[in-house]
């Protein structure tokens, strides 16, 4: 008998066969293995028995009483509810997350500065607040009005304009065409004056004779201060609110309303004649006050005067 056979034998039974006993007498390794095996079994078998506590039956009875389905506040629907309720909770949670996601996506989405009337792509401004070029709307085309000049081909030479030029169609069109481009100044010019036009807009004059104006204005055009105030005030305020307006028969008339703008939500329509902004009549003069926010508009629609209060976004 080999040592391996012997060890296998005493692994399974402490009672040795006659052959194993003969091997054990002659093999010191197996003698040691046998001794350790018996000692180990003695130690394991000699461990004290751990008993259950005295209140084991009482606790068990209580657990069975608690766990008995017939005694519990259960109903035939209970097994189904076990799955339906968590499933419903998960579905509700997913719905809330999805709706929240849609809401925030909608909040972040900047409304396209697409005019209600204008469908043609306008090449100029890169920022939403920059005044856009006036393109003829389908209505205007139908009325036979001339399309404004292309700002890209307009030379950047100073225009000769009378400072006290009356507020009319031509002035407004030129003003619109001047906007929409922003100069890239290689070296920052020295700013020599910071005039406050009273409307919160910054128009700076540089040392090289150029005017650094708000985005969308032509900084190279040396427009007299008075004209800047007169021509940009009303149109800029209206543009901030999404209204493109131009003088028509010496009356500021709404040409287009930007989609999803506060003006559109508040009910401003194309063709409305703007008589007053925030209570100040539109006369071609710059509006008083520093606020550029349109809060109320007094309009004339189909011969009826109407006051529109702008609704804040919800």
């Amino acid at each position: 008998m080999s040592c391996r056979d012997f060890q296998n034998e005493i692994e399974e039974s402490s009672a040795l066969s006659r052959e194993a006993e003969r091997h054990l007498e002659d093999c010191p390794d197996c003698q040691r293995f046998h001794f350790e095996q018996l000692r180990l079994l003695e130690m394991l078998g000699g461990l004290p028995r751990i008993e259950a506590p005295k209140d084991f039956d009482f606790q068990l009875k209580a657990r069975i009483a608690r766990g008995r389905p017939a005694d519990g506040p259960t109903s035939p629907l209970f097994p189904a509810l076990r799955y339906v309720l968590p499933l419903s909770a998960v579905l509700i949670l997913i719905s809330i997350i999805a709706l929240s996601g849609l809401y925030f996506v909608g909040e972040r989405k900047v409304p396209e500065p697409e005019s209600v009337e204008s469908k043609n792509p306008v090449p100029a401004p890169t920022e939403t607040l920059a005044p856009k070029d006036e393109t003829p709307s389908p209505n205007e085309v139908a009325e036979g009005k001339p399309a404004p000049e292309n700002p890209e081909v307009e030379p950047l030479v100073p225009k000769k304009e009378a400072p006290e030029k009356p507020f009319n169609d031509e002035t407004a069109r030129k003003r619109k065409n001047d906007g929409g481009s922003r100069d890239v100044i290689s070296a920052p010019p020295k700013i020599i004056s910071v005039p406050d036009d009273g409307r919160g807009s910054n128009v700076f004059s540089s040392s090289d004779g150029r005017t650094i104006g708000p985005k969308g204005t032509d900084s190279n055009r040396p427009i007299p201060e008075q004209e800047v105030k007169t021509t940009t005030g009303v149109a800029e305020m209206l543009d901030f609110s999404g209204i493109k307006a131009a003088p028509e028969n010496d009356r500021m008339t709404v040409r287009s309303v930007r989609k999803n703008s506060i003006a559109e939500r508040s009910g401003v329509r194309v063709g409305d004649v703007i008589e007053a902004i925030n209570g100040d009549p539109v006369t071609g003069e710059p509006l008083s006050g520093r606020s550029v926010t349109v809060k109320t508009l007094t309009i004339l629609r189909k011969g009826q005067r109407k006051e529109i209060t702008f609704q804040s976004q919800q």
Partner: protein
Amino acid sequence: MAWDKFENSGAEVLQTAVSIEDLSDHELIESTKNGDEDAFAEIVNRYRNPLTNYLYRFLYDYEEAVDLAQETFVRVYFALDRYHTDYAFSTYIYRIASNLAISEIRKRKRRKTLSLTGLFQYDETETKEFQPPDERTLPEDDLMEDERRRVIERAIATLPDKYRGPIILRDVEGKTYEEVAEILELGLGTTKSRISRARRLLRDKLEHYF
């Protein structure tokens, strides 16, 4: 089934106890199925201590062992209809207890609430374990025996999970190889191999006590 009968008092229990003790496990289960709560009480009486001992050796945590022993009986009680007499009831109940113990160990590993290193690893300085309070001054031999017992318990507890169950069932509980294989749902060869391997590991851990 009226569980209230489980704790009947007085002469009624005394009268029925004699006959119940003579019944086999299968007969007790059948009686319990027929509504005899005393029969189930006898089942509990037969197996509560062996199960508690087995689970304590497995988990090395007395409270947990008692809890799982009770849980074993609860599961047996509510699954009587699914019990088949194809194999011994002791195999059936030990299998439930083993599965609960293995699940508990897995939960512990996941939760890592109880420090497995502190609880199951062999550490001579470790003294935290279940110890009934004993204010007596022990003689030196008793102290040494007590220390050796604790070392053996820790050595078992530090065995890998797959070796712990087989060696406890075989060498502590005294089950046969076949019973161990049935309880743990292992092949006979695998069972023998694991027991042999567990003994070798224990011999290495306890070499100072040979």
